[in-house]
């Protein structure tokens, strides 16, 4: 998919911001992903051409960083922190509750495309464990009750 004119303008601006254009590669991939929701093989090919890089270089970068997705997520991408502080404050119980409530396992998307569920490593929010990030936003000090309210608000 060729990025929209608006995204292409943002990409041009990102490239101009750095003394060396290559520095903008992560920004370019973020912009592509924010428009499409993920980065498909043809998007990688487009980025490689735009940046004047071999496709393998772009693929290497996409696969290195966990925020770059190569499959479409749900509209609400639930990222449950699984690292130690969250584990000892109940993230596993939280995850089981989410799996049960949504009827999917981690790594899956609900059939209506509303939710996707993954576990992630420490999000730097250990004092408010357990927590998760939904799309860009942090949701902290989670309990079953708070999850119920939160999920109901996400259409």
């Amino acid at each position, binding site marked *: 998919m060729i990025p929209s004119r608006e995204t292409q303008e943002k990409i041009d601006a990102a490239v101009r911001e750095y003394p060396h254009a290559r520095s903008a590669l992560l920004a370019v991939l973020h912009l592509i992903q924010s428009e499409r929701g993920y980065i498909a093989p043809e998007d990688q090919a487009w980025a490689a051409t735009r940046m004047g890089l071999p496709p393998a270089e772009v693929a290497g970068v996409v696969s290195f*960083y966990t925020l770059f997705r190569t499959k479409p997520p749900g509209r609400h991408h639930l990222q449950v922190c699984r690292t130690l502080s969250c584990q000892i404050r109940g993230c596993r119980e939280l995850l089981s509750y989410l799996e049960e409530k949504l009827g999917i396992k981690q790594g899956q998307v609900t059939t209506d495309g509303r939710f996707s569920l993954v576990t992630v490593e420490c999000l*730097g929010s250990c004092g408010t464990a357990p927590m998760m990030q939904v799309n860009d936003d942090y949701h902290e000090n989670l*309990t079953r009750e708070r999850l119920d309210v939160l999920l109901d608000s996400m259409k």
Partner: protein
Amino acid sequence: MSANGYQPLLLKNAHRPDSATLAAYRESGGYRALERALKEMTPEQVVEEVKASGLRGRGGAGFPTGMKWSFMPKGSGEKYLVLNADESEPGTFKDRLLMEEDPHLVLEGFLIGCYAVGCRHGFIYMRGEFVRPTRILLKAVEEARAAGMVGKNILGTGFDCEITLYRGAGAYICGEETALLESLEGKRGMPRLKPPFPAQVGLYGKPTSVNNVETIANIPLIVEMGPSWYANLGRPKNTGPKLYCVSGHVRRPGVYEFPLGIPLKELLFEHAGGMLREDRPLKAVIPGGSSVPILPAAQCDVLMDFDSLAAAGTMLGSAGVIVMDDSVCIVEALLNLARFYAHESCGQCTPCREGTGWYVQILERLERGEGNSSDLDLLLDLSDRIQGNTICPLGDAVAMPVRSYVTAFRDEFQHHVTHKKCLAKPAPVPV
């Protein structure tokens, strides 16, 4: 030393609802230090003051900041200062707080740093997940630009400094400074061999200094109050205020600011409210983020500073204090961390790439009750083979904890072998 009555310096504005605005920052005396540095001091004098303050880096290594800056070559060549805002050490959540609650403090420190090392284009490497802090910091940069403090001819002094925020994309390893620089150049975040050090060959091959957010937030304080005032805070060679991140089984988890050297037990039992559940006593504390050796409860009478914790066989690290009560199974806790390091290893060095996977396999076996006695020594042997044999410290950052957990809690590991189950008494978690 008791820290009761201490008035926060780094978090002094954090309680204000408008703390992120330029107006609020100015009202509390903000940007006076930048003005003083630019108008009354040479860059060398700033470096000298930071040296004299005794400030040691708050990112984990505790290296003296003034000395790091003094390694940068003099002269007007292209040089870079990079702010490491890739906070991702498990147990650590102080830099995010600083950026969200007092972005101008961070920005002022960064601008003074750019002036001190002769950088005219500074980069702030933001953790990719930190969308909100990035938004807040970007707004602060634009506010500061409109007020003549970012861009050309800052405060009419002829000093030019552009600032660019760079968004990472999720990789713990990019908190390591050379991996961060690779990432900033648009590549996979694979650490570089040192030497050459970044002060000689850094970003785009140019001299570069990389500093942590909390470190940089100390700079305005040093310039404004003077290095001797600053050096009186804390303990000898461990000077200044410190942000301690307390998480786990305490009543009031959160970020606490006290001088370096506060007793760990005072931090936990007076300030953080003590243990979460009365019937669950303290079992162990990780004092400096997941990469440091663990302290069993009996060894927790320590002061929270670089040298005291080193003497106790562990590290202050990022001051991510993870508190565990007796419901925690140490084998399971270590497995959680081993999975973290296996996931985050960049894969460049064999001992780390393979070793972290081995740790996971062995610990999973022990967790399932399928381990045997030789597995304990195998874990220790693996640590010996990883530590010191990798390009970057990620290998050490898992090898040292593994060795300390197995050594300090050997009975518990042995119990998993002999009885095929856990010694700890799990508590129902109220979720």
